[in-house]
């Protein structure tokens, strides 16, 4: 009985997580996104347009690591909420402080 449970747990782990190929693909995406970031950085004609582009690219990298490497995509939703509570609160506090210190004006 205990053994059966153990093996079923194991198969869960294997199917619940992505394959090596997925991990590798994510890694390649991360490298490519970083390369694009650094590349864009040297294009001077973009002006202030660089800020949203870089923000989106690094946001994508963040999401890739959290979803695949930290396997939130395959885990219980509760864990996602626990993390996002802190994450979004931190983002809000950062932006509120920047606003209060007239960072944007």
């Amino acid at each position, binding site marked *: 009985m205990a053994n059966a449970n153990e093996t079923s747990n194991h198969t869960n782990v294997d199917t619940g997580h992505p394959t090596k190929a997925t991990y590798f693909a994510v890694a390649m995406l991360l490298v490519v996104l970083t390369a694009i970031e650094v590349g864009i950085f040297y294009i001077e004609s973009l002006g202030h347009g660089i800020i949203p582009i*870089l923000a989106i690219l690094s946001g994508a990298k963040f999401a890739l690591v959290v979803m695949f*490497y*930290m396997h939130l995509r395959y885990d219980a939703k509760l864990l996602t909420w626990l993390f996002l509570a*802190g994450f979004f609160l931190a*983002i809000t506090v950062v932006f509120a402080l920047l606003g209060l210190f007239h*960072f944007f004006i």
Partner: protein
Amino acid sequence: MAQAELAHGGHEEHQTTTGLSHKKLLMWAFLGSDCMFFGSLIATYLVYKNRSLGGPLPEDVFDILTTSTSTFVLLMSSMSMVLAYSALTRGNMNGFRIWLLSTCIMGATFLGFQVFEFNEFVNHEVHFECSHLEDLTKFERTFADRCDGTVDEVFIEHAGLTPRTNLFGTTFFVLTGFHGGHVTLGVIWLLAMFFYSLRKGGITPAKHEEVDLAALYWHFVDIVWIIIFTVIYLFGVFPGF
């Protein structure tokens, strides 16, 4: 099964309300909490951005290509960490050890880059050519009044950046220093796991969750760096931000 376990002494820890393990919940709640920690440090950095009274400033000291390389190393360490975990869950202990050790090595390499970088900043020098004043940064231009013929056409001025130099130095070193501290703890944790895995029964596929927790921490340190790289380094050099 449940009955049998209860009778054998109530292993309630295996039958949690949500079905999730205690440790995993703890780890994710802690990571949410740590977001607030780094959020406060990043907010401090940004609030004080462009408020330093003197140089050197980001555009004087940052070397984007060097930092891109160390960022690459840290991203790759995340990949090798997840491959280590994947190998462990498949029962491939040797693969696990190899990937885990390479994660540690890449983490240590990242720290080496950071030490190198800090050292460069502390020993930063302004290289001056009085015939090329137009290429200078704002900070470097403050030395330009020396180009009145009393000094050589080309001279080198020591202008190091330490945590005491200006607000940029203070906020930059403390923010990246605490990130480096997190990486150091991570390397120690992973190394401890590596050596523990050499012991018989130390780390087994059945104990994969212990490794998963360390991996979560390691990836978190990585995503914090993803944000620091963009917000502090890339935006830091970008004029007008």
